């Protein structure tokens, strides 16, 4: 009996972890306690099995593991982007965007839905917080969509799904965590996810377009009286053309003087000029531009500038993702302050929410590091590897199995838990199969995005529920009573987008080029890295550590 337990300790440990987690006790402490419990069991059983490579002195490495979590510069980006997301939400940027873009697209069928998708993508490119996007868009767009007779499931579905774009379009939190867990640079991960994220946005729009052709009643155009900014799309097109000409001219002039990124600088100059022209036009009341064009330009430029500040600097290699996050957060503070939306309480509340999120995330990571010390010490990773290599179909069998596994897990738990518990177990197997880890990460990123949409535990649906009117309410604008939105309608609305999501997973699987272009990584991490590698271990008398780390290069076989 004891021999049987000793030889099968890894599966037993894993099953008991599942049992621990299902108790509903905080994940971080369950992971850590499970690790400690099985450390003790494993040391007691070590005479019975060669697989167990643990002894009491190894326990002393635990504080170092915690210190390593602390020193992790990459994960510092998590609080930065979270804080930025909350501040931006409070600055009312989403409201302005939705209002203006909604008016721009309002005249066409499905216009509000397109506006939601595009604003969702814009918000996603500035921050990585799904909650903020879904809540902001749910509060602003949903009542309007309901007022003008949008199909309810479609309206809630498109808002929830567009909010989850924050998960896949850089700078997203999940890509940071995946980069950390897969041992790849965040910049590579961002570059890999950018095109799939944009294609997904396109897929959402395509879906709305198909609905507007087949079932036009589901996505009516806005009546003329709602469009307070009036027409004048022509003026906007002219302004954009002028901007484009300036950009080309600037690019031509700068090409020889700046080594890299001339195009980006040229675009920045053009955007800035158009923006100032619009602001001047508005202030002086010259009326060169139509009111619509003015408003669109003035509202769209600040978020675009923020996107440049964050993503542009990261992709150009000017800043690390962590610094990009910090600059983005500072930019958001400036923006909120300029709009007089920033007071002490707003700031304190935003910091509190950020503290809670950052703290639970980092503690899950600490828990998973304590778990991994034991799990790897009893050759758990070898057990997982054998489990997956035994699957038929080799690389494809593995990829399909992993996607199904992550999809099903995503229905019940959210991406932080999956990323910290499951991904580190899968990464070494992926390496064995020769799978590119950036590509692997992007596939998993798209997959985990669905975990926000799958009933009954999809968080985007929770957020949607919390902002959608459950009971009938009297709408002052249209002077009539509008029925509430039922939870079932919210669930039904998500289905189409879950299917789109699955299509996207298949697309990324079939076309790895989308995330790993031949050109190689967009940024060479060696140009940003400044810190020297730490010299050797810390302190003395530390026992030799086999490669137990989740984050360690998995190609080393400890046998």
């Amino acid at each position, binding site marked *: 009996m004891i021999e049987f337990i000793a030889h099968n300790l890894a599966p037993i440990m894993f099953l008991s972890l599942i049992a621990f987690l299902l108790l509903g006790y905080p994940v971080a402490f369950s992971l850590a306690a499970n690790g400690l419990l099985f450390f003790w069991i494993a040391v007691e059983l070590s005479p019975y099995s060669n697989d167990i490579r643990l002894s009491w002195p190894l326990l002393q490495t635990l504080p170092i593991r915690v210190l390593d979590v602390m020193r992790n510069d990459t994960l510092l980006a998590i609080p930065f982007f979270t804080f930025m997301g909350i501040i931006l939400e409070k600055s009312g940027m989403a409201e302005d965007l939705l209002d203006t873009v909604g008016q721009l697209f309002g005249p066409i069928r499905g216009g509000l839905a397109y506006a939601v998708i595009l604003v969702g993508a814009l918000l996603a490119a500035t921050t990585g917080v799904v909650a903020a996007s879904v809540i902001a868009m749910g509060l602003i767009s949903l009542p309007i969509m309901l007022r003008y007779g949008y199909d309810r499931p479609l309206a809630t579905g498109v808002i929830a799904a567009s909010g989850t774009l924050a998960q896949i379009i850089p700078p997203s939190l999940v890509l940071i965590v995946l980069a950390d867990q897969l041992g790849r640079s965040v910049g590579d991960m961002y570059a890999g996810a950018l095109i799939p994220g944009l294609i997904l946005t396109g897929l959402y729009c395509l879906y709305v377009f198909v609905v507007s052709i087949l079932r036009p009643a589901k996505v009516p155009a806005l009546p003329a009286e709602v469009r307070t900014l009036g027409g004048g799309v022509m003026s906007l097109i002219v302004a954009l053309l002028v901007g484009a000409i300036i950009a080309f001219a600037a690019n031509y002039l700068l090409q020889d003087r700046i080594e890299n990124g001339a195009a980006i600088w040229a675009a920045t100059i053009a955007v800035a000029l158009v923006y100032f022209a619009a602001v001047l036009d508005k202030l002086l009341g010259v009326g060169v531009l139509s009111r619509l064009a003015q408003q669109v330009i003035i509202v769209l430029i600040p978020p675009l500038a923020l996107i440049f500040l964050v993503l542009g600097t990261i992709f150009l290699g000017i800043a690390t993702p962590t610094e990009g996050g910090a*600059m983005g957060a500072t930019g958001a503070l400036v923006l909120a302050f300029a709009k007089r939306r920033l007071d002490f309480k707003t700031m304190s509340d935003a910091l509190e929410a950020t503290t809670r999120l950052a703290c639970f995330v980092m503690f899950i990571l600490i828990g998973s590091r304590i778990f991994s010390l034991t799990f790897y010490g009893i050759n758990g990773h070898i057990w997982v590897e054998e489990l997956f290599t035994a699957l038929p179909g080799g690389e494809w069998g593995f990829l399909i199995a992993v996607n199904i596994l992550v999809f099903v897990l995503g229905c019940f738990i959210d991406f932080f838990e999956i990323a910290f518990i499951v991904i580190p177990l899968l990464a070494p197997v992926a390496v064995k199969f020769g799978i590119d880890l950036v590509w692997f990460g992007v596939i998993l990123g798209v997959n985990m995005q669905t975990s926000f949409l799958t009933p009954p535990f999809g968080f985007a649906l929770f957020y949607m529920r919390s902002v959608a009117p459950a009971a009938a309410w009297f709408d002052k604008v249209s002077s009539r009573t509008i029925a509430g939105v039922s939870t079932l309608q919210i669930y039904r609305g998500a289905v189409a987008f879950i299917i789109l999501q699955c299509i996207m997973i298949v697309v990324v699987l079939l076309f790895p080029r989308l995330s790993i272009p031949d050109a190689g990584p967009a940024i060479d991490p060696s140009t940003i890295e400044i810190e020297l590698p730490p010299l050797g271990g810390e302190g003395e008398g530390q026992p030799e550590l086999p490669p137990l780390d989740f984050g360690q290069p998995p190609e080393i076989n400890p046998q």
Partner: protein
Amino acid sequence: MQPLLAVSRVIDAVTGFIGHHIRWLILAAVLVSTTNAIIRKLFDISSNAWLELQWYLFGALFMLAAAYVLQRNGHVRIDVVSGRLAERTRQWIDLFCHILMLLPLVLVMISLGIPFVIESYQSQEISTNAGGLIIWPSKLFILLGFFLLLFQAVSEIIKRIGFLTGALKEPEPEPTHGITPEDLGVHGGPQK
């Protein structure tokens, strides 16, 4: 029971006080990191001490805030099963897990952490990065964090017992999961 509950209230007050003020470290980290990036780009100088300060601040934040987050019920749980259980059952589970999981964990970490900090302090260990910061304070944050967690665990155990015996009326705060609508100033229902 009442004296114990009083102890719990004192612990909660201290934890709450720390949680209330520690959050500003994020703002400090944001500003330090922004300044680092700009100065490096503009003047092509960078200081390892300032770079290390970023993670120092963040490390201090999440270690020292852990007890506060526990008090606010902010450590994520998987509530697939437990969400269907009765309130009392969940309180029993929490009580047992606080005693059997959390207490041993923090005690192990504290007993390992004390020599870890003392050794580093005595050798005045300095970061291996050129011009880096001294290391022992960061290790001290780890130790302090687990000490605070120990006290908070005791307080939580007292509160759970108090609730189960009926001596304490108010229930545990609702579990939070990341950013909630309330954090964004939303309290359900249409706003406009």
